């Protein structure tokens, strides 16, 4: 392609503008274009700050210039090795998740719905560890309250698990472990609103942390026997004589082979092999009397296969290694992968007996990984955007304002809440005009915290619930307090309209309100500190003297793909006007506000979305 020389010039300028140590070779990467699809390892001579920054961005969440420089000082092999074959001891500073203590044994097994709960209570006199009142009005109210309590508390606690994980992503010395966990989290997608048990989600995350870079076969077996997945895919209702195909189908369609590599018969036969697989509380169990141990015909083989044997048969299929290897590639490198490369990577994974770490090493060391189409071409996912922004700001923890889950949710990705079992589409689907504008708003919320922030783990999002709370406090009886408002959503009814308190078994809306109240009594609040920023000091430490250097420093530190010269000039002019001078030294004592505005402008650029 004839355009290559322009890019080389552009790279040379960027390398220059960094004003940091950059090894020889930045401007000499003629190989960049021809490196595409080449899995041969990158040479030491081609290893520099730019390649290290790219590696850290993809294998982790990016980092500060110092962290990139540390990688650049190593050989490529040593750098990749430090990330992929990480030492858990590096993370002794990270804490285990602190449970709020919301669960009690009476909640197990949790019925599938509120009607199922009240029916159980009526039939047996008790549900969720709460007795039905022998007499009086609303005999079932305490049961219903507890039902809604668990729903709300589990949801809030799941948000805390998400925060704990996000903090690991920001603070971990082994970022690849977290990045790989994020990949598996999207691959083995389960949603809190169906599972309704934060403990299961936490345990599944643990699997991803501990087994994420090990054997894919072992991980598949572990996930298939994990209560979170069993609960999400209704495996518990997979019984001999009435096998539930959902579990078998998703394993084959989404987790291992992809559509078109098995028949409907294969699904039905596999479902038979998984019958009896269930869970009790947090433990996997096999109900032998529910298990169909007859002969199954699966993918051309015949035998009394059980679930694990089915998984091993799936692993034997050539397509499985290719499916997983190419999905990992698309997550870490780029969306388009050629058939030839798919086969090559599939072979790599299969020859490594499904050892994911070996596949990752191959990918991260390959020239293809550092080729032009692979570098700076990925649209950051919302979680990647938030975490890498925090890392590049030098933060050691995730701020409580803005709320991490709200922020990433507004950008269309919430941890533990993928839209469907197929996970997040990723790639360009992260971006629409509205979402681009929202990303700018996220940056603004970090750099200029909202003083009117209302913590979502205290203030209930539903105006109807808040209205019930107000009316109860005013002394209205339950019937009056839970009347749908006649003044539009959330408006409070006049007291003169109070009705007589009804006779009823229970009141759902009151339960919803009381459940929320009980939940926030127990769930530990998320700390609401803002980002501790001092951009002035950041520049001062680097010896920046004028506004051009300041903008260049910020561009180099925060952006993997630089905007064009017009934008750079605009930023420099903007800063100079804001400061009333081009001298950083002069403006030292008052430049924080202007620096933050410039950084907001930088983070609103389309190019900032690329990693």
């Amino acid at each position, binding site marked *: 392609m004839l355009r290559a020389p322009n890019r080389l010039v552009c790279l040379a300028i960027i390398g220059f503008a960094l004003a940091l140590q950059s090894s020889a070779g930045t401007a000499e990467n003629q190989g960049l274009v021809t490196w595409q699809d080449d899995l041969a390892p990158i040479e030491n001579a081609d290893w520099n700050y730019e390649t290290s920054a790219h590696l850290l961005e993809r294998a982790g969440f990016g980092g500060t210039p110092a962290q990139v420089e540390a990688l650049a000082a190593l050989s490529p092999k040593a750098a990749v090795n430090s990330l992929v074959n990480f030492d858990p001891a590096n993370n002794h500073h990270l804490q285990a998740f602190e449970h709020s203590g919301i669960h009690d044994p009476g909640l197990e097994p949790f019925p599938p719905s509120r009607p199922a709960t009240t029916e159980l209570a009526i039939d047996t006199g008790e549900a969720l560890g709460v007795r039905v009142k022998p007499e009086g009005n609303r005999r079932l109210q305490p049961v219903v309250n507890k039902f809604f309590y668990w729903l709300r508390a589990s949801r809030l606690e799941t948000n805390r698990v998400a925060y704990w994980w996000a903090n690991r992503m920001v603070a971990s010395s082994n970022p690849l472990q977290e990045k790989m966990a994020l990949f598996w989290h999207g691959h083995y997608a389960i949603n809190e609103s*169906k599972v309704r048990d934060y403990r299961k989600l936490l345990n599944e995350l643990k699997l991803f942390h501990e087994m994420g870079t090990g054997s894919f076969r072992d991980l598949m077996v572990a996930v298939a026997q994990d209560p979170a997945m069993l609960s999400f895919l209704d495996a518990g209702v997979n019984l001999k004589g009435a096998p539930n195909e959902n579990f078998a189908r998703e394993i084959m369609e989404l987790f291992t082979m992809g559509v078109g590599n098995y028949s409907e018969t294969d699904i039905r036969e596999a479902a038979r092999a998984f019958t009896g697989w269930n869970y009790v509380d947090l433990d996997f169990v096999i109900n032998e009397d529910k298990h169909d141990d007859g002969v199954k015909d699966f993918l051309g083989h015949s035998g009394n296969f059980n679930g694990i044997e089915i998984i091993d048969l799936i692993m034997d299929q050539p397509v499985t290694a290719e499916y997983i290897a190419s999905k990992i590639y698309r997550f870490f490198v780029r969306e388009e992968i050629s058939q030839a490369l798919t086969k090559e990577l599939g072979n790599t994974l299969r020859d490594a007996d499904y050892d994911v770490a070996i596949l990752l090493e191959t990918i991260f060391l390959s020239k293809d990984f550092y080729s032009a189409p692979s570098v700076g071409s990925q649209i950051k996912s919302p979680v990647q955007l938030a975490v890498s922004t925090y890392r590049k700001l030098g933060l050691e923890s995730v701020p409580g304002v803005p709320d991490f889950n709200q922020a990433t949710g507004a950008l269309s990705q919430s941890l533990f809440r993928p*839209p469907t079992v*197929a*996970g*997040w*589409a990723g790639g360009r689907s992260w*971006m629409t005009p*509205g979402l681009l504008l929202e990303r700018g708003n996220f940056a603004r919320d970090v750099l200029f915290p909202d003083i009117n922030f209302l913590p979502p783990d205290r203030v209930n999002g539903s105006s109807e619930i808040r209205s019930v709370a107000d009316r109860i406090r005013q002394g209205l009886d339950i019937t009056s307090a839970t009347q749908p408002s006649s003044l539009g959503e959330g408006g409070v009814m006049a007291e003169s309209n109070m009705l007589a308190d009804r006779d009823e078994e229970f009141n759902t809306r009151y339960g919803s309100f009381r459940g929320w109240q009980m939940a926030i009594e127990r769930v530990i609040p998320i700390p609401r500190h803002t980002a501790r920023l001092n951009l002035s000091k950041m520049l001062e430490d680097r010896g920046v003297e004028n506004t051009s250097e300041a903008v260049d420093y910020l561009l180099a530190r925060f952006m993997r793909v630089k905007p064009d010269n017009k934008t750079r000039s*605009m930023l420099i002019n903007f800063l100079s006007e804001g400061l009333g001078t081009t001298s950083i030294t002069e403006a030292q004592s008052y430049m924080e506000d202007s620096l933050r505005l410039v950084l907001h402008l930088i983070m609103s650029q389309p190019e900032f979305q690329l990693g």
Partner: protein
Amino acid sequence: MKKNRKDKILDRRELLAGMAGLSALSMVPPAFAQAAQAAAAQAAASGKVLVILELSGGNDGLNTVVPYSDDAYYRNRPNIGIPKNELRIIDDHFGFNPGMAGFERLYKDGKMAIVHGCGYENPSYSHFTSMAYWHTAAPNSGDEYGWVGKLADSIAPSAPSNYLVNIGSRQSLAVKSEKHVPVVFDNPDRFTREAFAAEKEALDIVPDIGEVENPSRRFLLDIARSANDASALVRDAWSKYDSPVDYGVNDLDLQKVVALLDAGMPTSLYYVSYRNNSFDTHVFQNNLHRRLLTYTSDAVAGFIRDLERIGRADDVALMIFSEFGRRVPENVSLGTDHGAANAMFVVGNQVKGGHYGKLPSLTELADGDNLAYTTDFRKVYQTMTQGWLGHNQSANLLGGDFGTFDLFS
């Protein structure tokens, strides 16, 4: 050279180049009138428009279109069943909820099809899960993209700008598309970057794609331009919109649809919703539900009248759905709990009004005292994609051929 999205935008820019821009701040002035003419020509060529209205929360179909002639209805709902003399009678079996003057008029004018018993196998009673199934047309499964997004990809794989509009606080899964960039906004006046005053000028500049190599970067610059352009188009369309038609208390964003149609926005697919799980009427249902239905009915009736005013009534069909119906027996709190099969509505000048589908039985109930579905909802989707929009590749995006109802004249 292969034609791509960049070329489409360049063509339009060349058209616009001669006109004085409305916005002095943008490097690519969105000369609205020119764009509108070009867009209107394109829209006229492609013809039909599909609007989808989502009623979120699980609308109680039985108290919307009441089967008053069936005793089982009153037996199951001794308290919240609506007496015949309060209903808006449309025939010997059915009457609309008293709040729905608009729907009664539309039905009697032959512009409304009611499809009974829509649902799917093994229904989910979870708002989130069931709505995701409806959004992806993949019940008991999943997809990364929405059915409307896939429809856009299938009909218009070259992905022209502004083909899909979703009015809401965030992008619905239903419009999530592989190739298209849906225009998503809530308040047209606020469909603009939230920036500090000092920054506004700086942020309105979108650089030329020009020599940019990196395809992802080109895509993002397109998005940025689209954000500026689309937002300008939307704000302008809204400021020019001036209608005497009364939409009632809550127009459900249908006025914005009319505003964009009138301004010649080249959009074929619109998605709006009645938000916040409003129809989730677990307690003391009747007054609230009647209000919700009144607002819905008024909005839809206003929408049809407004379309006639701007001369687009023959081009537009509106499909109304909810993620599930509600349980047949009332509950102890004078409300209803999550159910299964439900009625869907299709409204428009070209609709052959009447009842469609097979009525679910009120005595032979499915699991949990719910209505058993008699029509897979994807048949109604296919009726809209194939029967209305004339798209014959519907099987791919719906995961099968569900057939169509003969709904349109």
